[in-house]
């Protein structure tokens, strides 16, 4: 029997106070995610239960109980507090998926500071933009990423502390750099938890839009209420589960459901910090007897590509429930998972801004392959007519996916950008930026984005950010960046480029430009294809018509081209 039960009953009886009661939270109480994910679980008698099972590069294995993560969170919180970090200071976590990342998350929250997790593959420019915007005071990182921080620290006078968790004594420390070793620190049994309340800020996750620089999505500690309940009902996490969320905490899935959801429920979770390979992933499931697996369509399609035979080399019978997030899950992947694992992947739809799962195929309910599923109880959603922002009632008609604000995990604002935040609302609806239709049973069917943002492997990339970075390459005159369809990643970045005088198109220049963006921004943002052009299509007023290039890539109608500049 699943935790969720019957949809109709849940909808009828739903109130977010269900989660509040289970978490013994009352309005006005202290509410601190760091405490709820560790101290509270220990107080519930699970101090010795494994919380984190870690496997990293080179077959490094570590295991932590809930008491271990409680104490480690205390140690890190105490260390930060002694440096002078205070509540609401921003602390960036810039690490691979090593245990210190997860434990720093708890420690930072425990002292009331705001966690700013960033994907460790980000290049220095992506890192700089986000640290500058957040006015980050401390960054916790690894030696291997230190060179990126060193390149930008002079431009970040507010970045007072660069904390290195694996400092090697042979490498000389420079200004503002502080070594920290969790293993060599004395345990801190008791830490004064900062008395955060429901609306105290907890996290800043950065997300990309069509225009402008990335925006810092501000979440608060009250998000716990929704993350706890959705993890319980949608991911169906139960007492004896061994859970694996494959997402990196640099992205919202990696924090909402890679830390907060499972640990607030007292669930054991496994982390594999190694690159992707089908064999390694299946072996990991087999070795640790994973029961609940939350992954992404890109990974699932890569597993499909690796073939069926390899699946049969492993015992994957421990798997009990499968879910997916990040981009639409195609029906072929659902059908394949039924064939290979005996159960379907359940699609979940949500965003950095929503903080928790909004639409999903629930455990125990009929899965319609290719559909995103139905609304989570307590969420009011619709597809809106793009002309008047009124809900569309006709089944099957495409509109903008929108939600009525008010659920606990909803973002509270964009950091230092209230104007952009307000732009996300029309007629009292939060606009997700995605389009879909709803069928006559209330199932949502994804169609695509409503803007130019590129969804590659489940991560959003801003064409504006890539175009801006491209212009810094000495050979690039003008650029336009669009999504290109891709079998595995759904979309990848494609750049159209005109060259400055004196430069000639060549395969080597294409590679040089690709690597330039990979290092400056991130591997995700790297154009996988560069097309050199004599000129880019523009309107008569000189604006590059990205829409035209996008339509060409997707084999779509180009639409109105009456404003196209003549030759």
């Amino acid at each position, binding site marked *: 029997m699943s935790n969720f039960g019957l949809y109709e009953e849940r909808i009828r009886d739903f109130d977010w106070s269900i989660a509040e009661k289970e978490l013994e939270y009352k309005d006005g109480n202290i509410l601190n995610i760091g405490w709820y994910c560790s101290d509270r679980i220990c107080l519930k008698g699970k101090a010795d239960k494994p919380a984190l099972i870690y496997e990293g590069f080179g077959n490094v294995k570590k295991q932590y109980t809930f008491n271990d993560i409680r104490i480690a969170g205390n140690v890190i919180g105490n260390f930060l507090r002694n440096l002078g970090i205070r509540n609401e200071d921003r602390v960036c976590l810039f690490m691979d998926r090593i245990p210190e990342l997860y434990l720093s998350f708890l420690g930072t929250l425990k002292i009331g500071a705001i966690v700013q997790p960033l994907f460790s593959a980000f290049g220095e420019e992506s890192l700089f933009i986000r640290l500058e915007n957040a006015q980050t005071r401390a960054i916790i990182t690894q030696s291997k990423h230190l060179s990126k921080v060193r390149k930008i620290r002079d431009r970040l006078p507010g970045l007072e502390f660069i904390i290195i968790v694996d400092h090697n004594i042979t*490498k000389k420390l420079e200004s503002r750099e502080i070594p920290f070793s969790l293993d060599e620190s004395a345990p801190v049994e008791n830490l004064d938890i900062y008395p955060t309340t429901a609306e105290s800020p907890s996290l800043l996750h950065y997300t990309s839009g069509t225009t402008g620089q990335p925006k810092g999505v501000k979440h608060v500690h009250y998000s716990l209420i929704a993350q706890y309940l959705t993890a319980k009902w949608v991911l169906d996490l139960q007492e004896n589960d061994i859970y694996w969320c494959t997402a990196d905490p640099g992205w919202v899935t990696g924090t909402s459901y890679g830390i907060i959801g499972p640990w607030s429920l007292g669930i054991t979770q496994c982390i594999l910090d*190694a*690159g992707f*390979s089908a064999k390694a992933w299946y072996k990991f499931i087999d070795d640790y007897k994973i029961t609940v697996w939350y992954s992404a369509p890109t990974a699932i399609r890569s597993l499909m590509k690796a073939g069926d035979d390899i699946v049969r080399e492993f015992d994957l019978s421990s798997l009990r429930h499968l879910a997916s997030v990040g981009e639409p899950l195609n029906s072929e992947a659902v059908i394949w998972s039924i064939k290979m694992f005996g159960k379907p992947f359940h699609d979940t739809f949500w965003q950095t801004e929503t903080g928790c799962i909004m639409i999903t195929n629930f455990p125990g309910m009929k899965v319609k392959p290719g559909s995103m599923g139905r609304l989570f109880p307590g969420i009011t959603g619709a597809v809106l007519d793009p002309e008047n922002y009124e809900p569309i009632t006709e089944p099957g008609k495409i509109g903008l996916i929108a939600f009525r604000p008010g659920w606990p995990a909803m973002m509270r604002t964009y950091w230092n950008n209230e104007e952009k935040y307000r732009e996300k609302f029309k007629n009292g609806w939060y606009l997700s930026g995605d389009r879909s239709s709803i069928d006559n049973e209330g199932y949502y069917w994804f169609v695509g984005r409503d803007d130019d943002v590129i969804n590659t492997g489940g991560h959003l990339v801003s064409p504006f950010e890539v175009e801006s970075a491209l212009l810094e390459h000495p050979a690039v005159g003008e650029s336009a960046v669009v999504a290109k369809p891709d079998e595995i990643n759904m979309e990848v970045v494609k750049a159209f480029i005109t060259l400055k005088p004196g430069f000639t198109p060549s395969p080597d220049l294409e590679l040089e430009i*690709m690597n330039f963006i990979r290092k400056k921004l991130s*591997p995700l943002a790297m154009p996988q294809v560069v097309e050199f052009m004599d000129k880019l299509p523009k309107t008569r007023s000189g604006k590059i018509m990205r829409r035209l290039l996008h339509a060409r890539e997707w084999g779509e109608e180009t639409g109105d081209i009456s404003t196209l500049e003549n030759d």
Partner: protein
Amino acid sequence: MEDIKEMVRKYVISEYLDEGENITYDSPLISSGYVDSFSMVSLLVFLENKFKIKIPPSKATPEAFDSVNKIVELVNQYINK
């Protein structure tokens, strides 16, 4: 043969590894996280440009790119064609 190996190894070190990191011909590249699936595309473009070959997408798998030795094995299949 040795030249190709060393050429690929040097390229991987210069483009994907951090300062002070090193690899052997057998060091895992993908499964160790040195090269992720997105960056693999730029490595593929390098091989195709450098050795004037075309590797079909179906052959450019994480397993085939998981060490310098494996990459050279793959490249040789197309160089010799």
